[in-house]
Structures are given as structure tokens and as C-alpha cells.
């Protein structure tokens, strides 16, 4: 795919994705707005900025780039982006979390086209992504693998097992994007268990580490489009983000991790996004 740096268009897509996220969660009556909203620019850059190679009409196309949403609770942003990309009809988004829906509360590969693996149990996705990276190496397939990891999720020991594995195997086709929004469920990372220094840790495990503003589309596209070296260090992109980004009353508020807006809050959010 070729790079799309029509930023006006990408920004409009971001706005639409934010509305979809809030609307889906509002209709579901439960879900995770905060950590979905912090990922919007990252996901839009990947899917609509010309970074990922994919064919919505052929989800199992062997040369597709793979995306693993390791922080699976951000399923709403993934579903909104997959629908926009054409994997399934956008009108189905509001069936999220309903009993007969193919849009499960957390991503499930067997339920939803475009979803690579099941996630939702934190600490597993990065490791699966590295497995895919090794599988592609054996196949001599030049596709890339992206894993999106929560900053709280970095507290799982399995993340650092994978960090060591991928550094050791020089899995340069693997890129981990850390959604550094500083919040988890029980509070700010510093009040629970800070994973800092994050950059030094990944570097010590033989990763290449860069930092970007996770809401700055030009910066994201610039970093994500850099050529990779398949047998060199894996890359960790620490993306500085704001949890709840785009809806003033949700931004940086820990309690918006895992609750749905009520009707009044929903309307207020939509007004802000439309305004």
C-alpha cells in the first residue's frame, strides 16, 4: 500500500471512529471507552495511512500484515476500524456484546473477520504476535507484524518473556506499539505499579525503541513507514497518548476505563465530536 498523507481525510476518519466507539459502547451498555479512544490515531494510521497491507475481501490473504490487539479490551476501536476498512457492514457495529453478535466483548478470530487471534487476557497478545513473526520467517514471508500493548499490560511477566525472546531471535518483522496513556484500572500507573523505565527495559532486551506522540498522525506515519530490517532488532514504539482522548470529560479519568456512557453523557460526547 502507498502512504496516505491526506491528513484532513485521516482526521475525519478519526472523528468518525471516535463516534462509532462511543455509539457502540453506549448501545452495548458496557465496554471500554478510555483505552479505545487512546488508540484511534494509531489504528487509523495503520489501516488508512497506508501502513498495513490487507484485503478486506480476503481476510486470510497470506501476504497480509498482521495486527494483534494485545490489549483486547480495546475491541471497539478495532471493530470500528475493521468495519470502515470493509471487513463487515458498519451497521453491525451496534450489535457489540449482544448475545448473537459476531462482535464479542473481546476479540475472537473465529467470530470476526479481520481479527487474527483471541485476546482479552492481557499479556498473551505480544507473545502470539512474536509467534506469528517467527512463523512468517520460516515461510520467508515479508509481511510485518504489529502488536498493540497497554502500558498497564506491561506489568505482565509474559510481556518480558516475549521481549527477551524477540530480542534474542532478532525478530525485526515485529513492532510493538505501547499505548502509553498512564492509566490502568486501579489508578495511575505510578499508584499501582509503574513499569518504568520502559525505554531502557526494551533496549536492554535488544529492541530498538522510539517514542512518538500517539495522537500526531504525521509523526505516526513517519515512524510506522520507516523500512524494517527483517533480521534486526524488533521495534518498540512508545506512543504517548491520553486515555479517553477526544471527549473532554473522559480524558485522563481513570473511571472511564470500563464503563458505558449513560444517555446524557452519550449526547454530550457526540456533541463534542460533532462540534
Amino acid at each position, binding site marked *: 500500500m502507498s502512504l496516505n498523507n491526506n491528513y484532513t481525510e485521516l482526521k475525519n476518519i478519526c472523528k468518525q471512529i471516535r463516534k462509532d466507539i462511543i455509539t457502540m459502547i453506549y448501545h452495548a451498555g*458496557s465496554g471500554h471507552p478510555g483505552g479505545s479512544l487512546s488508540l484511534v490515531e494509531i489504528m487509523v494510521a495503520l489501516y488508512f495511512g497506508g501502513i498495513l497491507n490487507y484485503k478486506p475481501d480476503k481476510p486470510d490473504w497470506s501476504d497480509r500484515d498482521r495486527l494483534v490487539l494485545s490489549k483486547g479490551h480495546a475491541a471497539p476501536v478495532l471493530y470500528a476500524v475493521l468495519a470502515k476498512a470493509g471487513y463487515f457492514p458498519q451497521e453491525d457495529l451496534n450489535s457489540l*456484546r449482544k448475545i448473537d453478535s459476531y462482535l464479542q466483548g473481546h476479540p475472537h478470530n473465529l467470530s470476526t473477520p479481520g481479527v487474527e487471534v483471541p485476546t482479552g487476557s492481557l499479556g498473551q497478545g505480544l507473545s502470539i504476535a512474536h509467534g506469528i513473526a517467527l512463523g512468517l520467517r520460516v515461510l520467508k514471508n515479508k509481511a510485518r507484524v504489529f502488536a498493540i500493548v497497554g502500558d498497564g499490560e506491561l*506489568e505482565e511477566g509474559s510481556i518480558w518473556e516475549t521481549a527477551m525472546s524477540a530480542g534474542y531471535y532478532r525478530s525485526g518483522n515485529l513492532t510493538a506499539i505501547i499505548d502509553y496513556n498512564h492509566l490502568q484500572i486501579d489508578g495511575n500507573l505510578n499508584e499501582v505499579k509503574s513499569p518504568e523505565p520502559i525505554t531502557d527495559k526494551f533496549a536492554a532486551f535488544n529492541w530498538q525503541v522510539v517514542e512518538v506522540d500517539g495522537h500526531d498522525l504525521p509523526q505516526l506515519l513517519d515512524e510506522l513507514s520507516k523500512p524494517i530490517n527483517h533480521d534486526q532488532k524488533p521495534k518498540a514504539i512508545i506512543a504517548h497518548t491520553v486515555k479517553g482522548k477526544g471527549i473532554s470529560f473522559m480524558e485522563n479519568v481513570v473511571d472511564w476505563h470500563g464503563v458505558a456512557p449513560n444517555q446524557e453523557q452519550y449526547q454530550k460526547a457526540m456533541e463534542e465530536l460533532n462540534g
Partner: protein
Amino acid sequence: MDKDILEKINNPKLSYPRVAYGKTLVELGQQNDKIVVVDADLAKSTKTAYFQEKFPHRFFDMGISEADMVTTAAGISSCGFTVFASTFSIFLTGRAWEQIRNTVAYGNFNVKLVATHAGITVGPDGASHQALEDIALISAIPNMKIMAGGDYLSTVNLVKLIAEQKGPFYLRLPRCKAVELYSDTDKFHLGGSQQLSSGNDITIISYGLMLQRSLSAAQELNKQGIKARVIDMYSIKPFDYDAVLSAAGETKGIVVAEEHTIKGGLGSQIATFLSQHQPTKIKYVSMKDEFGRSGEPQELLDHYQLTSNSIVEKSLEIIND
């Protein structure tokens, strides 16, 4: 049926067993400075946050690291503490299983694993969050004892009971509110059970949120002139062997109703026991060998046929056999 229990299920008062857990922890913490609590970034959901607020120096949020939390709990307990360790059931019994087996249980540490969000009634979060195999997983480990909270007061009692007893325990709690079934005078003990309704035609054995549906089933059977004995098997390992033997001897058979897979749940453990001591007809109202899915708790119970209707049907199948 007993008027008292009928009143309780027909005019239900609902409350959260996990709130009972959090509040009882605070009570225990006030009486005993050797109580320590650990959690894994779910303190607000498991309600250990109440303890954290009162006793910040005896509380450790280990962050999202369940395996680490469990072995850390064992280490703390080795210094003479009773340690409560909590998170959602799937992450506690699943992610940290081998830590539980090889450290907590094998070393017989004084660690109380209290998990909330067990069963299909976790709801819309979906299959990844619905622990349907926790009883099987923990039952298989020597030294481990298992309890299940069925309502608010039973949870208060069970939390106190496992705090008094030495050694490792697993206490299973739901996410949702439960109908209040017990009163202040009810007593609970290791290896015990509660008979919630008496009868000699059929026995329904259950625990947790399925108690409510079991009692509704008994009420329905009662209308058909069938007297069902309903037992809350709140002590799952060891379970109440005498109550099970009496049920096998005095009634026509047993229906086990549980929010758990049929593979290795309480039902299969009762079957293993009775097949050796008193072969009896047993039917199961439990999850089949499949994953759950997203949906509202009541919808899911209906979808997977964990209903009072199924309990009635299975009871009739035994009686009419």
C-alpha cells in the same frame, strides 16, 4: 416448601457477594493485624479496595501480574500472615494455576485465593472472561479446599471460615448480585452444606447463582406434587459426603446444577463419589464442553440452558425413569 424460603425467592432482595467479601475483609483486618491482602489491578471490582483504603500498609496491588501475585502471597504468608489474594477467577485459577499447584498448595501456604467474576454470568465481556473450569482446575490439586459464596451472608461466613482455617483455600464468587437466602443464625463449616428446601422425591444440589434457579425449579416441581430437596453445597472440596449419601438413599436421584463445565465440576465429583459408595441416578445442568460468549447474564443462563426449566426436566426424567 418452607414459607420462609418461598418468600425469599418470590420477593427477592439482591446484593453483591463480592461486596460482602470486601466488607468482611475490613472486619477481619480490624480484629487481626496478621491479615494481608494482595490484588492484581482489579481491587475496585473484587472489592479488596475497601481493605486497601483502611489498611494501606497491609495491602499490595501487584498490578496486572497474577502469577507473581499468587507466589508473592505465598511468600508473605510464610512470614506468619494470612494472605487473601484476589482477581477475576479466570486469571487467578487459569493464569496462575501452576503457581497455585507448585507453591501455594504443595507448600501448604496460608493463602486464601478469593476470585470474583466466576461463571457464565460474567456476561458481555465474553468467553475470555468467563471462568467455567475453575472448580475442575483447583479440585485437581491436593491440599486445596474450595468454597462457593451463594449470597451475601454465606459469603460473609465463608470468608471468616477460611480466615480461621489454616492452609490454602479457593473461594468462588460471582460478578452479579445474588438473592439473599440466609439469615444471621445460619452456620457454615468446612465440608458442610445447607438444606434450603426439604423433600424426599428428588435432590437438587447447587451452589452460587444457580441456587436461585434451583429453588425456582423446586417451587415448580412442588406445584406438580413433587417435593425436591435443595442443597447449597457451599463447601465444594471437601463436599458434604453425608448429605450426598442421604440424598442418594432417601430420594430418587440427584440433579446437580452449576455454572461450570460438566467436565470436572461438582457434578462429576459427586458422581465419582457415589459410583464408589452408592450408585445413584444423576443428571447435570451445567455448561456443555464449549466456550461461552458475550450477552447479558440472564440471557446467557437461558442460552446455555442453565435454567429452572432444565432442572425441572432433568428431575422429571429421573423420577419417571
